[in-house]
């Protein structure tokens, strides 16, 4: 077996952004003590909602299943520590859409007693890929890069196609975020082990670990671990430090020089991308029998006293994590879950950290940028757009709500990376406009579908009425014929009856 070959592709556009990462990478990963309370949203993944299998008052163990999914289209949720379920209720969360979601609230008992998952007799390599996937579902493993797509499902989809490479994404291109960087520095061996498991599940022999060039420590640590493991299937690739090289499709383009088709997946060009954190989580579950109960998150920004990377239990309220990092500074005005380019601004720190939470960014309000001016068509947005869209044209059509043009100019291909906003001299909130336009396009599509259904119903009704009408006419005709055949006597009889009727009226 030889190391895989690849062409290094080129990313269109992108931005070199100030990294702001050293604040949080100067310390080793700190493990947070157990919080008093854990808040676990029952859906922390893309796909079908999980259903609670515990009720208020139930005692649970660390790692115990508390919400389950049918089939493989989702991810179960486990209690991140032992304690008592006190409520299953709606709670503020940091989801992309919507502000509240049903959560299981656990009062921790502080003992952290673990549910015992029996270790399999042999190594994972003896498992059939299907059995391994089943295991990944049960471990609650989802993509930890932020998209939280269930890992088993992703692999299953990939296996129906022609996959060549597993790409592990260690390109943490968004400013401030450094949880993958420190993970690669401190847990390189676990990542490599996870890569082996994922390759087995995929039944392929090639894995590329892609790391940004501004992470020399991570590259060194991974290099050392690879030297020790000496697995020729795994190779390390340095990619240029430019935002958004860590976007899934952008990374595939950088590593393979292939474009992921519009509306398609990296699997369409033979790649499966997983975050390095996901690989480590796979290792923890398959080898150490610990389901996805914690993750590393970067808590940073000028609104935090001591920026750092924290390993915290899933469900830990953000307020507790910030308190662990020394609390808020006076600058704390905006709380962002995720990075400064694509993260979501939330209004309360009661929100729990979930599987998707790679960063908790607390900053002062962005400096006043002045009034939005008209677009002067400078085209700088098109220069930086990694998808090679023309935001300066697209935005006209977005404001005009011109659906046809929006499709033509590739609105759905917009990855909402935010590059165009940063270079716009007129300070137009392009990304927000595009987000709104996308939502409206979805609404329109839904409405169209509804209208279509209504039309079908209406036409079906018309058809039915017409059929009834025709049937009645035919029956009438038949009766007339019968009457004719019965002869004049019968007619006289009928007329007489009619007359009698009218007399009675």
């Amino acid at each position, binding site marked *: 077996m030889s190391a895989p070959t690849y062409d290094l592709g080129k990313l269109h556009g992108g931005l070199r952004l100030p990294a702001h990462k050293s604040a949080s990478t100067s310390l080793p990963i700190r493990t947070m003590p157990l919080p008093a309370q854990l808040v676990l949203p029952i859906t922390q993944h893309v796909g079908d909602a999980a259903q609670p299998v515990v009720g208020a008052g139930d005692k649970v163990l660390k790692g115990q299943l508390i919400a389950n999914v049918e089939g493989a289209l989702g991810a179960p949720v486990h209690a991140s520590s032992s304690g008592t379920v006190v409520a299953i209720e709606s709670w503020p969360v940091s989801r992309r859409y919507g502000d509240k979601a049903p959560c299981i609230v656990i009062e921790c008992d502080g003992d952290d007693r673990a549910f015992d998952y029996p270790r399999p007799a042999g190594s994972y390599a003896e498992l059939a890929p299907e059995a391994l996937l089943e295991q990944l579902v049960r471990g609650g493993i989802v993509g930890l890069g932020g998209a939280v797509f269930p890992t088993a499902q992703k692999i299953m989809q990939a296996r129906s196609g022609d996959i060549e490479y597993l790409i592990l994404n260690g390109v943490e291109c968004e400013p401030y975020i450094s949880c993958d960087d420190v993970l690669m520095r401190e847990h390189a061996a676990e990542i490599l082990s996870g890569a082996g498991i994922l390759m087995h599940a995929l039944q392929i022999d090639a894995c590329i670990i892609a790391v940004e060039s501004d992470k020399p420590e991570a590259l060194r640590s991974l290099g050392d671990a690879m030297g020790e493991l000496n697995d020729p299937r795994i190779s390390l690739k340095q990619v240029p430090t430019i935002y958004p090289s860590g976007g899934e499709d952008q990374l595939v383009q950088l590593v393979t020089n292939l474009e992921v088709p519009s509306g398609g997946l990296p699997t369409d060009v033979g790649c499966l991308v997983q975050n390095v954190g996901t690989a480590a989580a796979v290792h923890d579950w398959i080898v150490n029998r610990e389901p996805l109960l914690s993750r590393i998150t970067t808590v940073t920004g000028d609104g935090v006293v001591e920026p750092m990377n924290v390993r915290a239990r899933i469900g830990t309220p953000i307020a507790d994590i910030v308190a662990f990092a020394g609390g808020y500074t006076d600058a704390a005005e905006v709380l962002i879950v995720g990075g*400064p380019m694509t993260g979501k601004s939330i209004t309360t720190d009661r929100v729990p950290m979930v599987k998707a939470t790679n960063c908790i960014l607390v900053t002062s309000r962005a400096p006043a*940028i002045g009034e939005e001016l*008209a677009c002067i068509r400078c085209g*700088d947005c098109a220069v930086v757009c990694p*998808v090679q869209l023309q935001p300066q044209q697209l935005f006209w059509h977005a404001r005009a709500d011109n659906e046809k043009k929006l499709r033509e100019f590739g609105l759905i*291909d917009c990855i909402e990376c935010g590059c165009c906003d*940063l270079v716009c*001299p007129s300070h137009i909130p392009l990304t927000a406009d595009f987000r709104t336009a996308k939502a409206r396009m979805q609404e329109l599509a839904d409405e169209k579908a509804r209208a279509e259904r209504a039309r079908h119903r209406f036409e079906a009704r018309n058809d039915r009425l017409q059929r009834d009408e025709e049937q009645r006419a035919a029956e009438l005709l038949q009766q007339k014929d019968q009457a004719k055949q019965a002869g004049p006597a019968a007619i006289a009889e009928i007329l007489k009856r009619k007359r009698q009727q009218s007399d009675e009226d």
Partner: protein
Amino acid sequence: MDFQRQEAPYLAPQTSVASMMLQVLAALVPAAIAHVWFFGPGFIFNLIVAAIFATAGEALMMHLRGRPPETALADYSALVTAALLAFALPSLTPWWVTGTGALFGIVVAKHLYGGLGFNIFNPAMAGYVVILVAFPMHLNLWTAPRMGDIDYEYLTIVQSLVYTLTGSLPDAMPFDAVSRATPLDAMKSGLANLSTVSEIRVNPIMGDFGGRGWEWIGNFLAIGGFWLLIKKIIRWQIPVGVGVGLLLPAGIMYLVEPSTHPSPGFHLFAGASILCAFFIATDPVSAATSPKGRFIYGFGIGALIYCIRTFGSYADGVAFAVLIMNMAVPAIDYLTRPHIIGHATEKNTS
């Protein structure tokens, strides 16, 4: 604790329209100094007059449109229009001529189309063309470049100011004494009189390539233009497009028949070619916006400049070339949309 809600991205924009416009103005400073050096202080008076009318027009129109005038004035775009117009006019131009051009450019070409960002036509060039139509004789009063060996009567600062304010020269100085043909005019009339290019170039106003003095202004404009390129205020496609569009036909014709066709160097350094390539055609609002489209747009302007100079009745053709290509912008943009990553191409489907 509670927090404010904001929309991603949360990082502040790195640039502003005002800073772009100020950088354009700064890039024009070396050439402006050269202009004053070679053609006298009239340029400054023109600039002041154009700036006053452009600013007043902008403020008035914003007021009439029910918008805060300070927003428009704070972006300095009216000053850029004024500066470009000042560069296009002879250093001796009465104030009402300059004012008419500046007002038309701002009021009609810019604000009646919706203001900055919506104007189809380059305001400075629209203003220039109105002057060309309304006051053609005033565009002939170019002074000779200040070069030691050129026989010429120089105006003092006061005389120049008086001309700007009143439109009259000192009694002892007739128009012929102070004005000289521009190199392009000299070339055009010379060729019309069946002189050869080399005969025409004997004229002391002619320099190594274009006209003396003009060449220096061209050099400084190019320096400013390169600075804008480095600062990424403008992109290379339009200047290169203009250059290729102008120099390619000029070069071919020069190779074919050098006695009746001036060299590409002459075309580049005479008239407003360099000003157009770096500062006029690059006005983003009225230019094409896709990368390929920008080259085509620039190329069209360059080629039209060549055609108008060679076959038209005007000595220079920058203003018409720019306005004509302005009209073609929507079509160019539509036909040159870049490939969206992930959409079918030969590379992907093969």
